[in-house]
């Protein structure tokens, strides 16, 4: 229990630091969102006088010194008020994130988990049966990992969507359908997600496979594995409970890091597939100097990384009793 409390405390401090950084960073960048919005309004007719001031109030860029601004920012954050998006004016940032985040979470999250589970399983088997056919497949998966990610995405898109119309070219669902919990929509969403997910799995599975395979080989020469064999335990029990159980540790750490980056890590993929996820939205925000949106997305990414790390930290304490020791 003390272990968990100590971890939670640490993560709270880290979250506060992240929030504070998130406040200061945009203010160090030159440029002003009000000017951009004003120039946009100029194109559609002359805006009324005092509009710029009203806009800056609306966007939470009000006056006062930096401390007052900071207080205002934290207070707004506590009410989940992240400001107004310039890109999708006047939709609140929290609403933009809420509508794009699930797409990314489900797609990239699922793909990452699939890649990890399949990679770890095959890696353990390859290490266990060193020198077998599965072991000889590993170099080719490493080759796939070495390919530029966006290039792989384009290649798959070209072959499977453009040349042989197996999968759709872009989007997250068929434009004829309205999002909702209907079978037609879910089916369409899954159909649209196969290709992007496949890209992620192909590009990342080699790393898991190779890492796990090598750790398994190392673990197999450990005394406790030899001892388990002498005990006459079944090969299955030895492989899972003794070899893989110990070999998986470094991969779990790697998994924590990649889970944290699920939210942000696939900007290129979402761009290539025009997928309605948060990575695509982030790109829009940066292009439009949409500070409030970019800031909000950064905050979500930071908190996601922290949250994922916290979960894996706690999980690690569960799978490796040695880290549970409270000093």
């Amino acid at each position, binding site marked *: 229990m003390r272990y968990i409390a100590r971890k939670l405390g640490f993560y709270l401090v880290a979250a506060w630091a992240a929030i504070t950084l998130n406040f200061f960073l945009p203010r160090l960048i030159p440029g002003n969102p009000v000017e951009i919005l004003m120039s946009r309004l100029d194109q559609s007719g002359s805006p009324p006088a005092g509009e710029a001031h009203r806009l800056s109030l609306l966007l939470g860029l009000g006056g006062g010194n930096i401390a007052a601004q900071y207080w205002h920012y934290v207070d707004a954050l506590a009410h989940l008020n992240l400001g107004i998006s310039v890109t999708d004016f006047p939709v609140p940032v929290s609403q933009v994130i809420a509508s794009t985040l699930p797409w990314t979470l489900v797609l990239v999250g699922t793909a990452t988990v699939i890649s990890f589970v399949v990679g770890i399983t095959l890696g353990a088997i390859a290490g266990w049966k060193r020198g077998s056919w599965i072991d000889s497949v590993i170099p080719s998966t490493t080759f796939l990992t070495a390919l530029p990610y966006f290039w792989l995405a384009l290649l798959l898109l070209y072959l499977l969507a453009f040349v042989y119309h197996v999968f759709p070219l872009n989007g997250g669902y068929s434009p004829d359908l309205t999002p909702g919990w209907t079978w037609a929509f879910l089916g369409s969403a899954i159909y649209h997600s196969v290709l992007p997910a496949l890209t992620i799995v192909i590009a990342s599975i080699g790393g898991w496979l190779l890492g796990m395979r090598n750790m398994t080989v190392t673990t197999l020469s*450990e*005394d*406790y594995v*030899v*001892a*388990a*064999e*002498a*005990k*006459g*335990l*079944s090969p299955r*029990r030895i492989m899972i*409970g*003794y070899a893989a*159980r*110990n070999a998986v540790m470094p991969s779990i750490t790697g998994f924590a890091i990649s889970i944290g980056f699920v939210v942000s890590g696939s900007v290129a993929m979402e761009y290539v597939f025009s997928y309605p996820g948060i990575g695509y939205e982030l790109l829009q925000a940066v292009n439009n100097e949409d500070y409030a949106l970019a800031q909000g997305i950064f905050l979500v990414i930071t908190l996601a990384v922290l949250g994922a790390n916290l979960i894996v930290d706690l999980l690690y304490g569960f*799978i*490796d*009793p*040695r880290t549970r*020791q409270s000093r």
Partner: protein
Amino acid sequence: MNTVVPAEAGVGGPREARAAAGDDVVLRAEHLSVVYDGERATRAVRDVTVELRRNEVLGIAGESGCGKSTLAYALMRMLRPPARLTAGTLEFRDRDGSPPVDVMALDGPELRHFRWTKLSMVFQSAMNALNPVTSLRKQFGDIFKTHVPEMGADEREERSRALLEMVGIDPGRVSGFPHELSGGMRQRVVIAMALALQPEIVIMDEPTTALDVVVQREILDEIERLREELGFSVVFITHDLSLLLEISDRLAVMYAGEIVEYAPSDQVARAPAHPYTLGLLESFPDMRGTRRQLHGIPGSPPDLRDDLLGCSFAPRCSFAFDPCAIVDPVLGPRFPVLGTGLDPSSPPAHAVHVPGDGDAWTVACHLHDPTRCPSEPPAALRGGAHGAAGTEQA
């Protein structure tokens, strides 16, 4: 070799005679040879024949790289590539009198069942022989689940606790993890696990090498106590000859993959028959005896990748004579077969040993072979002289 194991004796041969005489052999390994494959294969165990009798402690001594551990792994059939068994038979006799088991013929599930129920092992590095990420409860449980599947969870828990208690560890530790235990405690847990299924034989490969002498003593006393309590045979492997002389009933001295002397431990210290055994004995101090000059053995063991011509110890042996360089000596009776040449102070019991019985004292040295060395072996190898030579100087 003829006195220890007559190869393929016919009906009424010495082997049957011995069995009839109640000679209770639990494990008999004959002509075991193990090589490590490589560009030039390393012949780590060379035609070794050993037998282990019920409730006895057989000590296997020898310096690093002499093939002791390889022999232990061969007895467990645990050799992994590049190690490979090239020859030999392995026969196990259960205490319930069921027909002998040809261990070499066991495969897959049969072999897994044989392991730990009949023959268990305490590994060289107890520190690492326990799975670091699972509780002791789970590790005991794995043994019971595998070998006694009908045992319920409550009984498993009870047995695990009883085993821990048996080796002097708080039963509450069953929920603990290996890293929470000290080295000595871990070694006790490993011993408890080895005894979990009450096997006939426990092979102990340097079980106390990593521990300090005080803990080492505790563990040895513990093993002795458990052996009296439960009755199992032990193959005890170590480079520590003084320790072996104390705890083992019989002693096999290995050199360059071969057994060079096979003797009752209580007498070999006084009267080593092989020059190598003599060298080992002179290289450590006698705990209770008088002070004397310690000597090492000059030179180093041969490269086991080579074909060794003649006696493998000859280049380091101060007694070497002509045949040693050409002819490989085999295990045969030591020279004063009936104790005639022994030091007068040795107990008379020694004089009545009959060649071929369990206490046979064999040695692989031409000095003890009357057909090659017509004169008596040097005094140091006939007993008595070794101790005397040292004490006079002290």
